[in-house]
């Protein structure tokens, strides 16, 4: 289970473009490297990221092997209404990591 960290401003004015930062602890093994014993480290990355704002997909991403270890991402969204942002990270191993952030829009 990867540790996820998300920074969403707890409050915003309606219509304001807010900055969202995310950081996931994950090796993002690219599948081209060898371990200390000379064995191939198999590819193991988070390959997809999705963000829903009150159930509507506002932003998503496909990640490939050139994204760094512990992937970091800053993106933006418009504060439209009070509610929640749901974040999902899809791991190569089938796991899905989730996080929910509340936002109050005035």
């Amino acid at each position: 289970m990867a540790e996820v960290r998300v920074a969403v401003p707890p409050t915003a004015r309606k219509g304001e473009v807010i900055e969202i930062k995310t950081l996931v602890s994950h090796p993002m093994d690219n599948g081209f490297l060898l371990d200390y014993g000379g064995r191939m480290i198999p590819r193991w990355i988070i390959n997809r990221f999705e963000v829903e704002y009150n159930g509507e997909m506002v932003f998503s991403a496909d990640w490939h092997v050139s994204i760094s270890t512990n992937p970091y991402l800053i993106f933006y969204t418009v504060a439209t209404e009070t509610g929640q942002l749901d974040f999902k990270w899809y791991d190569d191993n089938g796991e899905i990591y989730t996080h929910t952030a509340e936002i109050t829009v005035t």
Partner: protein
Amino acid sequence: MTQKSTRRDVLKLAGAATAATVAPTIATAQSAGGVVVIGAGFGGATAARYLRRAGVSVTLVEQNSSFSTCPFSNTVLGGINNFSSITHGFGGLRREGVNVVRGRVNAVDPDAKSITLDGGDTIAYDRLIMSPGIDFKWDAIEGYDEAAAELMPHAWKAGSQTNILRRQLEAMPDGGVVAIAPPGNPFRCPPGPYERASLIAHYLKTEKPRSKVLILDAKDSFSKQGLFQAGWAELYGDLIEWVPFSEGGNVARVDPATNTIFTDFDEHKVDVANIIPPQRSNRLVDTAGLADGGDWCPINQTTFESTIHANIHVLGDASIAGRMPKSGFSANSQAKVCAAAVAALLAGNDPASPSFINTCYSLVAPDYGISVAAIYRIIEDGTIAPVAGAGGVSPSDAPASTRALEADYARGWYASITADMFG
């Protein structure tokens, strides 16, 4: 050349040869107005001194009456040296015939080939060498501006900032937290923040042993990292905590009123906050567009002449010198190459191929030194790059005697390079 002779004989011979060689250079330089150097730091003072040694007439413009070095300023913070020991006057340069002018440059005019000082005086040049150092990007960290730096010092230019930080460390109660926030690359003196953490830890371990040093880093790796971390573990236990970028170390915002640092995901209320903001070339270069809209000045890698304006050379931290790090030693090494190139160009000769060294010592403790070195040349793509197979860091398994010797050599490095700069 290999003939044995007494030292006295060779001195005479060398003196005669030097006079014969440089005579035309003097004539050219004087008739053309000479060289003006801006900034009496590692780059500028060295360039001025070596030009003078080559017989070129030199005016060195510096805004302060003395120069305090960033190298070894961490020993002041650690209570090992006092501030006057890192401060140098210009008497030696004057004695060697450098015309040292105190003044603050406010504009460079490449077309008129002159600079203007605060107060309106202008100084004409035949060739200008600028070694103005860095400025800070005050907009990079929310809440961190020049006023904030009085409360949360950067201490990344030696001077009053160094003293503010030292006083804060002295005033801090035992059990306090000192935060150091290094910027992302590139920045002045890559190992500097980590030497600072070491020497502050040395002070705290001695005087305030329940305290902590918290490094909130905008990077995931740093110069001499393995050596520093091994030294920290050996000397300071868990007194120093390093939070890399990928564990949330990046500083996004500060509140100087409450001494609070906000990283991307957390907040830290600390007792002493040393915020080292992202950097760029000194804004003086913008008066002539020498950074070409970027952060640092593009230059010809052999002569350090600006690729934007002819007859202006930029060296040291402000320049893009291939893969050389922004360090005092780099600037000193570059300055000698640049001085030789400028002397050659003034005399109508082709500049010689450059060779550079960067040697960098860090003190993990007063008797525990580590180092990194590299030799640099111009490679096929025309840029300055390290010579493969040479250089590198101190061995990881060196005994305490080697660490102690390298600490001695760190002090030797400082004595030699400051003598090389200021005479």
